[in-house]
Each structure stands twice: as C-alpha cells, then as structure tokens.
C-alpha cells in the first residue's frame, strides 16, 4: 500500500476536491434536479443537503467495503439498491421527526436515489478506493452540494420573501421578486451562478 505521506495528501484531496474543483452543482453539473426544486428557501435546501450527505456517506462506505464483490455488469443496479435502502431510512426519519420539512420536500427525498451525484461518486470513487477515502470524498462532495444549495436557496429566499432562514433581512420597503419562487427564478439564477463559477474557475466542459 502507499506510504503514510501520500495517504495523508490523498485524504485531504478526497475531502476538499468536492468543495470547489469538482463541486457537483457548479462545476460538474450533475444532480441538478434538487437545486432547482427545493431551493425556494434555505431551510428545505439545508435539509436536502444534509440528507444527501447522510446517504452519500453511508452508501459510499458500504459500496467501498463491498467493492471486491461487485460484478461489473451488475454494479449500477447494486449501487442503486444500496442507495435506495439508505434513502428509505432517511425518508422515514424525516417523516417521523420533521414532518413539516418532509411535506415541503415531498417526493424529492426519494428522488435522491436517482440523484446522479451519488451514483457518480460511487462509480468514480467508492468502487475503487478504501473506506476512509470514500467517506472523506462523500463528506467533501456532499458539503459542496449543500453549500451550492444554500447559496441558491439563500438568493431565492431573500429576493422572493425578504427573509433568510425565516429571519427578515431586507428593509421594510422591499418589493419581493415573486418570480424567484417560480421555476423561472430557479433556472435563471442557477444559470447565472454557473456562469459566475465559470468566470471564477475557467470554463469547464459540461
């Protein structure tokens, strides 16, 4: 196995690469359905982000532990089944302890199963690396995703209702931009944010 030094840098790389360079929403452009659907406010965005981190970490860990037992042509269905199990757990938890959030997120929680991010990370990382690297990669990517969701949710919530996380932040005379609550606001804001990310980091081929 590799010596201690490279393992150390490997771990740091696994943890941080998902935050910016391979940020799933702004750079890799995968898993775009939740960013548009649940970011009408910061609270659901945060809930969705945390759920994705949970599912990512658990499924990456399990897949990494099982990686030597996976037959190549069956692996996608195996990944999906493992992910589906953890998403079911997450959905039941949300329905029991946070019913209001669960109502708001609706069918988008089970849709985490088909979220491209999780399958992509399983394929690209967990099926090829040890458990610790996989967990760190999951935390990094999940956090990058959550940050992206919260930025989008924050912009939309502030412009649409003048509040951030249900706390009023805009001055009293602010006229809310109703369009931000609607699909238009979602698509256009995300498009502009990805454009900004391209400006900041150089254009990446989608």
């Amino acid at each position: 196995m590799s010596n201690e030094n490279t393992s150390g840098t490997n771990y740091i790389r696994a943890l941080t690469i998902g935050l910016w360079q391979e940020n799933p929403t702004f750079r890799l452009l995968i898993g775009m359905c939740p960013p548009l659907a649940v970011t009408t406010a910061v609270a659901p965005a945060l809930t969705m982000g945390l759920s994705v981190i949970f599912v990512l970490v658990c499924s990456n860990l399990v897949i990494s532990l099982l990686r030597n037992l996976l037959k190549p042509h069956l692996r996608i269905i195996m990944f999906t089944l493992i992910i589906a199990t953890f998403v079911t757990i997450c959905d039941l938890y949300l329905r029991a302890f946070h019913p209001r959030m669960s109502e708001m997120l609706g069918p988008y929680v089970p849709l985490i199963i088909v979220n491209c991010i999780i399958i992509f990370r399983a394929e690209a990382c967990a099926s090829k690396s040890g458990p610790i690297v996989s967990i760190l990669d999951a935390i990094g990517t999940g956090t990058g995703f959550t940050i992206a969701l919260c930025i989008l949710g924050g912009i939309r919530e502030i412009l649409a209702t003048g509040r951030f996380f249900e706390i009023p932040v805009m001055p009293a005379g602010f006229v809310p931009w109703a369009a931000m609550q609607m699909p238009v606001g979602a698509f256009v804001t995300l498009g502009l944010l990805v454009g900004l990310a391209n400006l900041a980091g150089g254009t990446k081929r989608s």
Partner: protein
Amino acid sequence: MGFLSVIIVNNFVFTKFLGLCPYLGVSGRLDTAFGMGLAVTFVTTLSGVLTWLIDFYVLTPSHLEITRYICYIVVIAGAVQLVEMYVRKFFPPLYDSFGIFLPLISTNCVILGLCLFINIWGTNNLLEVTILSAGTGLGFTLAICIMAGIRENMKLADVPKSLEGAPITLITAGLLTLAFMGFAGMIR
C-alpha cells in the same frame, strides 16, 4: 389530472424540475433529442404501469410499503434493460449514437418521479395510469425537442464565454418555463 395537463400545464421538466441531466446533456441536436425523448416515453409508460400494478396489488395489501422505493427502482432498471435490448436489436445506429445515455435513463429523475407522483396523486385505475405515464414521457419529449431546436440556433448566436454551454441552456429553460406558465389554469 389529464393527458394534456401532464404534457403542457404540468410538464415534468418545466414545472417539476425532473429529467434535467439528460435534458442538459443530450439536447444539442434535434434528431438525437427526439430519439431520447421516445426512449424515455417508452420507459415511462412501461415503468409507470408496472410500478402502479405492483403497488396496488402487492405492496399495499401486504403492507410492504416500506420497500416501495426499492421495488420501484428494480422495476425501472428492468424496463430500461428491455428498452436497451430492443433498441440494440432493431435500431443499431441509434443505439450507437446514444452511447452512455441509454443506461443512464434508468437514473433519470422523470421515471422514478413519475412513479412517485402517480402514488401521490392517488390514481386508482389502470387506464388513467397508462395515459398519465405516456403523457409524461411525451411532455419530456416535447421539452427536449424545443430545447434542441433552440440550441441548434444558439450555436450561431453571440453568447458570452462564461455562459456558454450549460448556463445559457439553464437560462433558456427558465424563459421556457415562463412561456409554459401561460398555460397554467387552462386545465386543472
């Protein structure tokens, strides 16, 4: 919920934000887009009907709802396998042009989303389920073809460098949703 409603008024791409990964990835050319749309329609109709049948006749009577997501995903994966085999046998050039995207349909949000929404809407007869499933697929096809047509022309337009590719597609999609909102309220 009606057939036209699910194609136009409640289009799955524009109002429910589903199916965006293939939407952004494939909608560069009209003929590929149309082919993908038809493949998705085939899979949605098949999966919608099968998952509803399983839910109605197997899961609910035996109180196994907790396995719902797992069952749905297995059925969808099977349906996509079927479509893949069919396309490979009868339309080989189309199969080659799809590449990685055909198996990727099994992770397409539209299909699982459709099965979940049929559950939520509480539809309880087979004909309605079939029509809604087919309609959703056709709505996706409509959305992806409109996008492909616009994108073909946008190649000649003067798009700022940082907005090229996905960002301008997203902004265009946003304006399309605005246009489709004009249909809201026409049909329930």
